[in-house]
């Protein structure tokens, strides 16, 4: 069942992105930045975790989850160490995504040429 909900929720988040690009004529960069902020706000309101419980990868794979993870890391550390935790905790959970993207992209630049 989680597979079906992952499909539907993930697909719908992409549709929101498509509507922002086609309807509001936003650039991809504006669209992605907006979706990340939306994900962050939803987690601030405590809603995003419920979406993940419900839809699994449908909520963790779209870029909105990046905003969710940033806030999640910040708040978890804030609970432990207070105000300073907001700063130290921001990248705690997202580290995997950012590090992987940097490392693999660099390796790709070593190996590949643009194909056109």
């Amino acid at each position: 069942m989680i597979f079906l909900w992952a499909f539907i929720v993930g697909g719908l988040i992409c549709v929101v992105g498509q509507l922002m690009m086609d309807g509001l004529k936003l650039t991809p960069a504006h669209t992605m930045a907006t979706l990340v902020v939306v994900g962050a706000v939803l987690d601030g309101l405590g809603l995003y975790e419920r979406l993940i419980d419900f839809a699994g990868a449908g909520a963790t794979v779209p870029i909105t989850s990046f905003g969710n993870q940033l806030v999640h890391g910040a708040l978890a550390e804030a609970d432990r160490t207070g105000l300073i935790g907001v700063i130290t905790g921001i990248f705690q959970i997202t580290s995997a995504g950012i590090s992987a993207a940097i490392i693999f992209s660099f390796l790709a630049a070593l190996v590949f040429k643009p194909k056109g």
Partner: protein
Amino acid sequence: MYISKQSFRYESEPCIVSSGVVVGPTEAKGPLKDHFDKMYDDLWINEDSFEKAQKKLMEEACTETLTKANITPEDVAFLFGGDLINQITGTSFASRTLGIPFFGLFGACSTSMEALSLAAMVVEQGAPYVLAGTASHYAAIEKQFRYPIEYGSQRPPTAQRTVTAGGAALVAPTGSNIHVTKSTIGKVIDNGIKDPFNMGAAMAPAAVDTILTHFKDFQTSEEDYDLILTGDLGQVGRSIALEWFRQKGVTLPEGKFQDCGLMIYDDEPEAMAGASGTGCSAAVVFSKILHEMQQGKYKKILVCATGALLSPLTFQQKESIPCIAHAVVIERKGA
């Protein structure tokens, strides 16, 4: 001879002695493949960067042109040219190789006709041989103006594809029956279009303005021409231009009003609304169109190359897109 505010008539009727066009892989698959002088099946044109690839297209278009006329770069008085890469390095680096005195131009995709009209002017002043040439490269220009070519962005149906091509023409006082007889230099026109993926709509009013000014300055009309050819308006820009002509009280026959951007690709899915780029009009006019004039298909044509004078910076600062168009009359005289 200077005619009015925007137009020249070349009394000595300088000739286009020869021309050369060198293209990349996608263009080589298109309908004009039999007209091109040299084709590469590799987007890198055997170079190690796309910028160098574009420089090589320019160089080779010039050398092909000179070879056909049986002259060397030392015989050429001046080279007029430009491109879309920052500081037109593509063209100036090619001039470094060629060693021809160089006038660097920037008129975006209108540069081909800007160069041709200036070449005719200089030949009229007594120069023996003058080259006019432009080039563009799909990947180098996408990188400059839009996104990296491997970046997955969805292009709207109004988008156009930059051609990978270099084209040059050699102008001389005598030597052929193809003459450059008149030109009209455009004003910068901005009708407030802001979408950088809709160049056709941005450039169409510049083309209309220049062509109407040309008709007025020479007291002529479209009936005088066998073909009125715009540079790279694409499907969208061409349709808008036809309608804008109608609103200005001029109805152009559809068949007579053609666009270079619609001639290079036939079913390239990435091309969307058509081809564009500084090399676009040069690649079409300096190959297919000149060949067809020599064969007698056209006697007198008006080529109006259009250019969008934006940069990524002006787009990000939310400025609208100013555009320009230059028109040149090319005629076949005698038998």
